[in-house]
């Protein structure tokens, strides 16, 4: 292996690792706040990339309909819960937000094809369609189970992942899509050829990770999230609504997943089930970070990306084996050094 190959591999590893880091951090975020191991994190990557691809192709993405259906279900559950206790004004607001907004978005996505407003309009609409799926998903599936054990939440998460992947097949079909690159420029650094897209990926990942840091350290909402992560009951006692924390965490996770999908869709082909594998590699990072530490997760995910690049060069047949084997010594070390704590709340 000469230095040129080495540099190419490092570049490839860093770009992939940046995406894994984003997903890993989102997993840690969701887990600390809601105790859900968010397996469907990867599905948001696929939904983001494929929604964008559908908009580019001038079609109305299935996610627009999904959002409306989920909004109706969530509003129904909310109204049923509040029946006879909340004033009509509150009920009307629920209806407007949960059903009105998705209806508006659906109308825009039905209208948009044929009126192509360019890439940035498509990106904005993709965000608007995919991000709300996160919080609404939390309200439908996890909020009623907020006090269940981690195992129950995990199994629900697996079920949701299967459902989302299946719906992805219905919405987007079995074939893969690529989207337009943000910018086709590429730079030559010595023998290395760096595409603008890979710079986008790394830069966005770095910015987002930095942004999350500021969010948790400096903003009231971020601090509220941290409080509910540290102690749910304590947070509730001092007046932090934990369901709001849950919704925010899921919204952020959906945003990160959707953004990752938009970033990688121009450089690789996205399928309805692409997200699972990508999410799983983020999960390795998150597990190495103990599902609690953001910096360790980000660094570990970067290492997973690099390891993947090098093992695909050295022993491509065993690539996945090598990556997933990394987790075993980490788990051993963690369980030997940390006293086992029963998960009870």
């Amino acid at each position: 292996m000469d230095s040129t190959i080495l540099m190419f591999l490092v570049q490839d590893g860093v770009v992939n690792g940046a995406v894994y880091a984003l997903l890993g951090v989102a997993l840690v975020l969701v887990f600390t706040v809601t105790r859900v191991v968010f397996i469907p994190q990867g599905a948001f990557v696929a939904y983001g990339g494929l929604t964008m691809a559908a908009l580019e192709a001038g079609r109305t993405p299935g996610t627009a309909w999904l959002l409306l259906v989920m909004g109706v279900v969530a509003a129904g559950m909310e109204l049923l819960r509040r029946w006879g206790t909340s004033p009509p004004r509150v009920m009307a607001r629920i209806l407007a937000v949960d059903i009105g907004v998705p209806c508006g978005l659906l109308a825009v996505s039905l209208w948009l094809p044929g009126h192509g407003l360019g890439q940035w309009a498509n990106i904005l609409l993709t965000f608007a369609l995919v991000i709300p799926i996160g919080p609404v998903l939390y309200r439908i599936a996890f909020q009623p189970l907020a006090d269940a054990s981690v195992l129950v939440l995990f199994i629900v998460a697996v079920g949701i992942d299967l459902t989302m992947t299946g719906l992805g097949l219905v919405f987007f079909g079995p074939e893969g899509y690529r989207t337009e690159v943000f910018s086709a420029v590429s730079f030559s650094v010595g023998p290395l050829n760096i595409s603008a897209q890979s710079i986008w990926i790394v830069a966005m990942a770095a910015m987002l990770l930095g942004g999350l840091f500021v969010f948790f350290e400096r903003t009231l909402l971020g601090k509220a999230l941290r409080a509910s992560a540290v102690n749910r009951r304590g947070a509730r006692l001092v007046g932090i609504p934990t369901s709001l924390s849950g919704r925010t965490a899921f919204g952020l996770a959906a945003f990160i997943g959707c953004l990752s999908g938009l970033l990688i869709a121009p450089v690789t082909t996205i399928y309805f089930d692409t997200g699972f594998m990508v999410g799983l590699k983020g999960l390795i990072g998150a597990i190495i970070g103990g599902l609690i530490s953001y910096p360790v997760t980000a660094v570990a995910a970067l290492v997973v990306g690099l390891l993947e690049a090098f093992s695909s060069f050295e022993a491509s047949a065993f690539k996945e084996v090598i990556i997933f084997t990394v987790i075993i010594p980490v788990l051993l070390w963690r369980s030997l050094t940390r006293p086992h704590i029963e998960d009870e709340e």
Partner: protein
Amino acid sequence: MSRNMAVMVTILAAATWGADAARAADIKIGYTLSITGPAASLGVPQKNTVGILPAEIGGHKVRYIVLDDGGDATRSVANARKLVTEEKVDVLIGSSITPPTMPLLDVAAETGTLLIANVPAQRTVSPVDDKRRWVFKVIQGEALLARAIADHMAKAGIKSVGFIGFNDAYGEGYYNEFKTLLPERGIAIAAKEGFARADTSVTGQVLKLLAAKPDAVLVVAAGTPAVLPAKTLKERGFDKTIYQTAGIATQDFIRVGGKDVEGTVFSAGPVLVAEQLPAHNASRAIGMDYIKRYEEAYKTPFAAFGAHVDDAVRFISRAVPPALKAGTPGTPAFRAALRDALETGGEVPLAHGVANITAKDHNGLDDRAAVMVRIENGAWKLVP
């Protein structure tokens, strides 16, 4: 019991008996296809093809029953057993990929039901032993398609090839053929790399291939995932020929690949370029007819592997009239006669070549089932 009720029961009994009798006379063909899951891009056009199959064979009504196995071997077996025991099908067809197909061999042998294997893998029908007596296949085996590629490489004067293929039955099946075919023609395999369908990057593998400085690269992958190695090779400045296999024969491959797959050379069944075949070619008219029916019904481009499903029924049709003399559909006598008739049917022209099945060879396709195709200006072009 009142008289009215007695009458009603009689009518009901008569009605159900009548319906049963009518249904018993129908020929039943049961499918287990991978309509969801990782092989959905193969399974969906195949399922669509079932929708345009003839409603009658030899003057007999045919009922087609399609079940989904999601590419999973457990589900394909459950489907096959359901089709055989509950629906009493005469013919089983499936599945879309090799892993869920192999266990169907046991179901077919055990229950004495005809199985038309719907995958390229030659080990589904070879050797013809007690287990495979009931199994036929009218899809080109890897050897047939690999030989066409190897011959093309030899003619082009290629001396070394870099191989990158799926880490699964598809990639390994082809590799095992090329392992002997290429050295026989004086071509060395300079590097062998693997990748997975879900991979988002193959940079490492491609760098390894390029380090071996091959005259050409052979990509063995199915559907749009085969684009990724080609795109990465182009990004890294590889300008020699990229060979692919019949697995890429879908319009989606060209859509996703765009200009990066221009000039790709691969071997495929003749249906892919039916219109460009010489007029005397037996597959020309049949292939064009299939494409017309498919595209009229679904308004989407056909996929070559959908035509296998059409071929299977065309192939069975020839054996139905003699089998009907031996027994009514749904009976073991009918199935046994159908099986025997398939072995002695002689040459059957299909969209994918000409099958000549004998008691010793349950595949029976020859070189007429493979043509070389090049991608030019985003379209399939027959290489003479």
